[in-house]
């Protein structure tokens, strides 16, 4: 049921944005940002349940909780960066959108450095046997 509701809201705000663009182009950007925020907010609640289930499953298999934390953080950064870069593209600022995506890559890399180091350690230990 929520899919239908979300799609309805998205289509409604899209139609309103087209009308608004005809009369007042400068008011379209805040409107599109607001519509995007409302849609994202309505989906966020479901994510907390998903993440707690995933964490419980990983704990059962004995995988370190830190990796799950990094994965969640990376998803969050990607979530926000994609939201911002699409809005920049929608406003016609393609250069800005590219910069936002580049910032996102750097942030994701900075978050995932510990995991990369762990992998290198494991590889080094594994290489010792060969």
């Amino acid at each position, binding site marked *: 049921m929520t899919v239908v509701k979300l799609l309805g809201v998205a289509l409604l705000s899209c139609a309103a944005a087209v009308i608004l663009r005809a009369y007042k182009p400068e*008011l379209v950007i805040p409107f599109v940002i607001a519509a995007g925020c409302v849609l994202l907010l309505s989906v966020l609640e479901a994510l907390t349940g998903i993440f707690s289930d995933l964490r419980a499953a990983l704990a059962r298999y004995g995988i370190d909780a830190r990796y799950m934390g990094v994965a969640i953080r990376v998803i969050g950064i990607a979530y926000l960066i994609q939201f911002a870069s699409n809005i920049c593209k929608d406003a016609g600022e393609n250069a800005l959108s590219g910069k936002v995506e580049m910032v996102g890559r750097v942030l994701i890399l900075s978050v995932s450095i510990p995991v990369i180091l762990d992998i290198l350690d494991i590889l080094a230990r594994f290489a010792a046997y060969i």
Partner: protein
Amino acid sequence: MDITIILKIAGIGILVAVICQLLKQTGRDDMAMLVTLAGLVVTLMIVIDLIGGLLNNVRQVFELY
């Protein structure tokens, strides 16, 4: 899932458009400019609150401290 915010902003946009057309017809272009600015400011105030709420939610859900 409060879509009232979207409808509120759409209403502001259309209202500002209508008022600007009216003011332009009567030849008062400076007032039309002021009305457009006022509409933009009000819309941005609403949107800023919304973005703040979204970012705080995302920060809690994804633990992006």
